[in-house]
């Protein structure tokens, strides 16, 4: 009983940081609809700022002032990010801002390394709160009690701000209907900036307030990211009390998990999220997200049509060039191009689901890594010939896709995306922790192709055939009746149903197809690298594909492939430099601002403007 209570208190104390950071994320999402992946970076900055201020300001007063100042400083960083990076892209397609925030992560990572140095730092203890009190004989740190006391204060203040003040009313109105608030004469731009400031302030506060229980290091940004997204989703996006309750649930469960299921801590959070979303699809306090509620920003999507003669010739020419690379290129250029092609197929498969199906997935890596693991496990455990294992990979991935798709299709929009993320993380933690079978993070090695393929040039041609084949196949399907049915399901589920399309079945079939194609790219990957590790199932791998789709142009058919090829190539050049993350981050932000419709979309527009291409609506 004593221990039980002590554990409960520990969980409540842990919830403080989680709530502060997550409430900021929730607030930003609720009002601006921006999925801010850089929120973890703001939390990291809060910790570093707080630590720096505490070195200058001594004593109890200095300690709390430092925390407040750290929040303010991060709030200012938030304003800068909002004004310089996000404001120019509010009109871009939904979720495009996500790519911009990813650029911000990279920039902040390198700047933090540059400014604060490489060493980890341990936070100072809170003056006056260094000891413990005994509660039923169990030691409970005083600072834990302070954290437990502070959190409801913040919750109440935020609630008061939102519920009782004019600013709060405007913010809530903006959450409901942005256009109407604008029409009523409220300067929406400043409202968004203000919300971004408040959200960043909370993230910074969260970073600084955990200093006495930890410190600051360069891995903090990604380490908290999954947890705060889980909290926001469980609580219901945009709901502050929801974020608080979810933070408490996750933190307390985690404490008990540590004691009773010590090996399960990675997966526990995602199991909870999966269960909650199955029972309450929109989180504990969330509202149902009706399709199109926030308006489709940007110009309406054009209907796709088969490529014209010029484009076909261009593609054929490119294929010929690719076919001759082994003749005039170096061995490394073959490796590089093969890598790019594999990534292009992976991105194209996500684009089929996201662009044509309107199904945004945040966990697409599960099919890529899943396919790769299917092949690797067959090779490792049953001495399956490489050719057979290679073909089993897409089959295995497709089977996984049926299950995941069936479970996730109960939800739509951002909630669908989050559920796919939960499943991807489940599979990841399973592979990561089931060391006896998967090798854990030591992975599976020595998965090389058969002798006839096992040198650079044959494998290059092998990749060329399967990757290009896969991409062309997806393109072909997009123009088939099935492709039309999928797009109809995306644009208007009701009308599609009325014309006799079983939208859910069409979508499920699309996910299965997409899973197979992603699995195929995973199989190509595993035999080109000779090994596979859980990193290929991680969130980062999923984001890679999302980013290139948006960079390439989500509303174009070739966007994914063009985006993937450009980014992989640029990355290959940039990563040679000392500050490559800074450079890459700025480059991404730069492209995002200059080309809000993606590379292909912007290119098409430019060509139309100067008259090289026929504009939309013109007839022969």
């Amino acid at each position: 009983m004593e221990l039980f209570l002590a554990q409960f208190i520990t969980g409540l104390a842990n919830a403080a940081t989680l709530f502060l950071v997550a409430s900021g994320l929730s607030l930003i999402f609720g009002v601006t609809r921006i999925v801010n992946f850089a929120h973890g970076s703001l939390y990291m900055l809060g910790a570093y700022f707080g630590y720096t201020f505490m070195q200058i300001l001594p004593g109890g007063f200095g300690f709390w002032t430092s925390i407040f100042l750290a929040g303010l400083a991060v709030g200012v960083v938030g304003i800068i990010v909002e004004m310089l990076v996000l404001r120019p892209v509010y009109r871009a397609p939904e979720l495009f801002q996500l790519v911009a925030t990813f650029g911000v992560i990279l920039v902040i990572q390198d700047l933090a390394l540059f400014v604060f140095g490489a060493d980890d730092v341990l936070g100072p203890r809170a003056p006056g709160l260094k000891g413990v009190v005994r509660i039923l004989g169990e030691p409970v740190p005083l600072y834990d009690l302070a954290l437990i006391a502070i959190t409801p204060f913040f919750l109440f203040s935020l609630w008061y701000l939102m519920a009782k003040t004019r600013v709060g009313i405007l913010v809530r109105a903006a959450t409901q209907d942005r256009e109407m608030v604008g029409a009523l004469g409220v300067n929406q731009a400043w409202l968004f900036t203000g919300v971004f400031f408040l959200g960043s302030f909370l993230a910074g506060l969260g970073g600084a307030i955990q200093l006495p229980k930890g410190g600051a290091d360069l891995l903090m940004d990604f380490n908290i990211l999954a947890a705060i997204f889980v909290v926001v989703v469980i609580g219901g996006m945009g709901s502050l009390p929801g974020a608080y309750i979810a933070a408490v649930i996750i933190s307390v469960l985690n404490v008990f998990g540590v004691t009773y299921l010590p090996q399960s801590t990675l997966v526990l959070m995602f199991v909870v999220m999966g269960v909650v979303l199955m029972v309450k699809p929109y989180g504990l306090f969330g509202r149902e997200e009706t399709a199109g509620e926030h308006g489709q920003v940007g110009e309406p999507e054009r209907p796709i049509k088969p490529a014209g003669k010029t484009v076909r010739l261009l593609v054929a020419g490119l294929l010929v060039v690719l076919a001759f690379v082994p003749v005039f290129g170096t061995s490394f250029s073959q490796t590089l191009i093969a890598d790019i092609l594999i990534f292009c197929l992976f991105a194209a498969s996500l684009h089929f689901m996201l662009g044509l199906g309107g199904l945004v997935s945040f966990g697409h890596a599960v099919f890529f890594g899943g396919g790769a693991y299917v092949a690797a496990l067959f090779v490792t455990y049953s001495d399956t010939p490489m050719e057979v294992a290679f073909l089993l990979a897409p089959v295995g991935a497709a089977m996984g896709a049926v299950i995941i798709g069936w479970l996730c299709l109960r939800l739509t929009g951002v909630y669908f995306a989050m559920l796919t993320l939960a499943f991807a993380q489940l599979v990841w933690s399973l592979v990561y922790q089931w060391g006896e079978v998967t090798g854990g993070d030591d992975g599976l090695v020595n998965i090389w192709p058969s002798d006839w393929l096992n040198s650079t040039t044959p494998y290059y041609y092998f990749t060329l055939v399967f990757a290009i084949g896969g991409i062309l196949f997806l393109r072909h399907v997009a123009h088939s009746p099935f492709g039309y049915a999928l797009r109809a399901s995306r644009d208007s589920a009701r009308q599609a149903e009325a014309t006799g399309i079983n939208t859910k079945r069409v979508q499920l079939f699309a996910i299965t197809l997409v899973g197979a194609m992603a699995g195929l790219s995973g199989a190509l990957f595993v035999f080109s690298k000779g090994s596979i590790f859980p990193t290929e199932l991680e969130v980062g791998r999923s984001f890679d594909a999302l980013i290139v789709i948006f960079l390439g142009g989500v509303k174009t058919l070739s966007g994914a492939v063009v985006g993937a090829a450009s980014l992989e190539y640029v990355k290959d050049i940039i990563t040679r430099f000392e500050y490559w993350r800074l450079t890459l981050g700025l480059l991404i932000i730069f492209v995002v601002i200059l080309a809000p419709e993606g590379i292909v979309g912007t290119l098409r527009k430019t060509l139309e403007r100067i008259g090289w291409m026929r504009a939309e609506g013109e007839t022969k």
Partner: protein
Amino acid sequence: MKINLRNFLTSALTGAAVVVASSFANAADTIKIGEINHFKRLAAFAVPYKKGMELAIEQVNAAGGLLGKPLEVIYRDDQGKPGEAVKIAEELVTRDGAVMLTGSIFSHVGLAISSYAAEKKVLYLASEPLADGLTWAKGNKYTYRLRSSTYMQASMLAEVAAKSDAKTFATIAPNYAYGKDAVAAFKKALLKLKPDAKFVAEQWPALFKIDAGAEAQAIERAKPDAIYNVTFGGDLAKFVREGTTRGLFDGREVFGLLTGEPEYLEPLKDEAPVGWNVTGYPWYDFTDGPSKAFVDDYQAKHGESPKLGSLVGYMTIQSVAAAIKKAGSTDTEALVSAFKGLELASPVGNIKYREQDNQSTMGAYVGKIGLKDGSGVVVDWSYKNGGDYTLSDEEVKSLRPASN
């Protein structure tokens, strides 16, 4: 917007300048080594490591280089992704003309490069990755490792633990391959020396996501006589802070793998857990000989004290230089046979790359944590030779694949 543009242009121009400059450098006739490491996100280790390498390269080249040519290292960031590391390895070998590969801190990246090395017949000196599999179950002819393995270091601590009065042990280790290896090795080595030892609790926090208060409570619940700790970095700091606050370490022996390394001990400052038995690197205590000379040279060049990573980086280049000298060529097969049984003098004394498993005998400093001038130091230490803390030759033979 303007600022972004300017920053971008500056970095782009700098980048272009670097490319131009390095292509000129390539034109000179140098012996190139391809170093792949995680320079960005685990900078606390990788940056001192790189500085150690730079010092050794300077010394090698000042002494006339190797085979009459200067030595050059090409540093590449693996981004923490094994797949990326394999691509970079290929590029370093086929495009940049690296004669061999070195580096990596992550075990999984090390294992991926090692598999690549065996398949493409390229020599790889794994400087830091600790996984036992690298030289045992997944070992191969083309892969050598410098740093003492997980098994070696855990056995050194187990030896100390066997001498203590503790009967019941709790373990805490990050929940990934290295943590599991480190606990398994400690158990195996301790039970060999002290068959009546009991393991009463095992805690497995997720790597760099520790919930330290809860972990401390869970260990306290088992009331062990002693604790074996494998956490490091930010996890260690949190565990020490919460454990100390709650009195977890009072009256208990604690055995901390890696805890005494300056990388992880220095950030704790005056909160360093006094009395823990640890492996580490007491550079401040050296008074003479090669260990002192290295510390002095390092401080003179970089203006800061060395970390363990600095030593590993330095010895990596020393090993490479010794192998190339012995081989008299940069041909891979010649280098592979040169590394077999290679002996060299280093700051920690003479080390040897064992014929049995391509593992060097580099050891570790074992001691207790004390406080000096408000910061943690390792006291009462002694240097243990890695070669004395490994499995028997028969066991090693049964672990390594027969073909190698």
